[in-house]
C-alpha cells in the first residue's frame, strides 16, 4: 500500500560549502503521511538537508526524486516573509498565489488578529515565527518541512503547532509528509512516526516508518550518545 503513495527520495546526495562537506552520500526516502523527526547536533546538516528536500538547494552530486504534486510548505531559518508588508498582506499574497483559504480564516486560526495590520518587521521573533508557520500551511501543502519550529514560540504557540502537525488544524482528507528538524524531543517527539538522526552530514540512525516506542527510544538514545 505504502509503495503506491507519493514519495520523496534522495539518492547519494552530496553537498559542500566552500569545499567543506555538509551532506555526505545521503540516501533516504519519505512517504506521504509520515511525520519524521530529524535530529542532529548544530552543524550536522539538518537545515541544508531540508533545503535540498524542498528543492531550493541543488546538490553537488546525487538525485532528488519526488512524486508529490501540490506545493511545499517550508518554515526555514529565513522566514520567507516580507518585513515591509503587514501580516495580512503577506498572508494574502501567499494565499493568493497558492489558491489558499481566505486571509481572515488563517489569521483567526493562528491567533494573529492583534497583529494582522502590523508590519512583519515590527513583530517580535516569536510572532514572526507564528506568521511564518501560518504561511507554511497555506494551501494544504503536500510536503511540510519545519526547521526548529518551536524554538521561538511561547507555550500557546507550541500547542497550536503540535495540533497543526498532528493534522488537527486545517481540514484535510490526506495527511502531508511532515519533516521536523528540532532539538525539542520532549514536546515534538511524541508526534513522530519516524525518527532520523543526522551526524556530520551522514544518517546515523533511522527508526523506519511507524516505528514502535522502543525503536524510537533506541534511535533517540543514539542521538543523545552522539551529542556527548
Amino acid at each position: 500500500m505504502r509503495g503506491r503513495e507519493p514519495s520523496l527520495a534522495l539518492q547519494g546526495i552530496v553537498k559542500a560549502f566552500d569545499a567543506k562537506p555538509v551532506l555526505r552520500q545521503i540516501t533516504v526516502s519519505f512517504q506521504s503521511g509520515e511525520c519524521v523527526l530529524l535530529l542532529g547536533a548544530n552543524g550536522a546538516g539538518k537545515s541544508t538537508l531540508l533545503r535540498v528536500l524542498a528543492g531550493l538547494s541543488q546538490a553537488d552530486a546525487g538525485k532528488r526524486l519526488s512524486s508529490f504534486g501540490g506545493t511545499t510548505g517550508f518554515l526555514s531559518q529565513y522566514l520567507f516573509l516580507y518585513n515591509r508588508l503587514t501580516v495580512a498582506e503577506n498572508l494574502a499574497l501567499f494565499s493568493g498565489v497558492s489558491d489558499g483559504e481566505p486571509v481572515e480564516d488563517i489569521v483567526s486560526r493562528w491567533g494573529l488578529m492583534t497583529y494582522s495590520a502590523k508590519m512583519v518587521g515590527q513583530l517580535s521573533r516569536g510572532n514572526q515565527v507564528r506568521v511564518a508557520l501560518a504561511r507554511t500551511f497555506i494551501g494544504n501543502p503536500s510536503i511540510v518541512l519545519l526547521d526548529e519550529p518551536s524554538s521561538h514560540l511561547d507555550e500557546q504557540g507550541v500547542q497550536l503547532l503540535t495540533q497543526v502537525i498532528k493534522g488537527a488544524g486545517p481540514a484535510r482528507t490526506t495527511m502531508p509528509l511532515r519533516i521536523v528538524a528540532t532539538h525539542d524531543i520532549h514536546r515534538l517527539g511524541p508526534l513522530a512516526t519516524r525518527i532520523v538522526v543526522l551526524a556530520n552530514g551522514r544518517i546515523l540512525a533511522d527508526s523506519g516508518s511507524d516505528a514502535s516506542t522502543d525503536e524510537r527510544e533506541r534511535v533517540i538514545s543514539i542521538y543523545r550518545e552522539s551529542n556527548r
Partner: protein
Amino acid sequence: MIRWAYIVYLLVLKELRLEWRGRELLTLLSCNAVFMAVLTGAGASSAMLDRITGNKIFPMLLWVVFILSTLSSVSRSYESELEGRAFEGLLLSGVTGSQMYLSKVLISTALFFVNYVLLLGVLSVTLDQVVWSVWKELVVVGLSSSSALASVVVILGAMASTSRLRGVLTPLLALPLLFPLFFAGLEMTTELVLRGALDPTSVWPSVLLAVNAVFLIVGLSLFDFVIRD
C-alpha cells in the same frame, strides 16, 4: 493563462507596496538623475553654449545620465527579496521564476520611465530646449527603452544579489549589454530633437524592438535558474 496573469498581478501589487513603503528605489533613482542632470546642465550652461549646440548635445546628455543614474541605483532593487528570502517561499508556493521576473520587469519599467520623464524635464530646462512638439514620440522611445533596460538589470541584479560587490557588479555586467539600447535611444532622440520626426528608413526602432524581445525572452527563460541556490 488567466491564473498565470493573476499571480503576476499579485506580485506587481506586492512590488508596488514595497516600493511605496520604502521609496528606496524611486528616491535613489530620482536623486541620482536630478543630481547628474543639474550638474551636466549647469556645466553646459557655464560653457555658454548657444541653443543650437545645446540642441545637439541634449540627446547625448539625456541618454548618458539616464543609463548611468539607472545603473547606479538598481543594485537595491532586489534587497526586499533578500531580507527574509521571501522569494523562496513564493517559489515553493508554485510561483514560477518567469512570473517573478515579469512582475519585477513591469515595476522597474515604470520606475525607470518616471526617471526618464524627470530627466527630460530637468535637462530641457537647464539646456533651454523645447521638446513638447515631439513629446509623444519621446514617450514611446522612453517607455520601450525603460522596458529593455529593466529586462536586463532585473536578471543581472538577481545574479549579483548574493555578492557583497553587487553595487558595482550589476552596472559592470549590464554596461556591455546596454550598448545597442544606448545607441538606439540616442539616435532616435537625436532624430526627434533635431529633425522633429523619426526617419522612416531608420533601423533604430527595429534595433530597440529586437533588444526588448531578446532580453525579455532570455530573462523569462533563465530567471528561475538564476534565483535558485
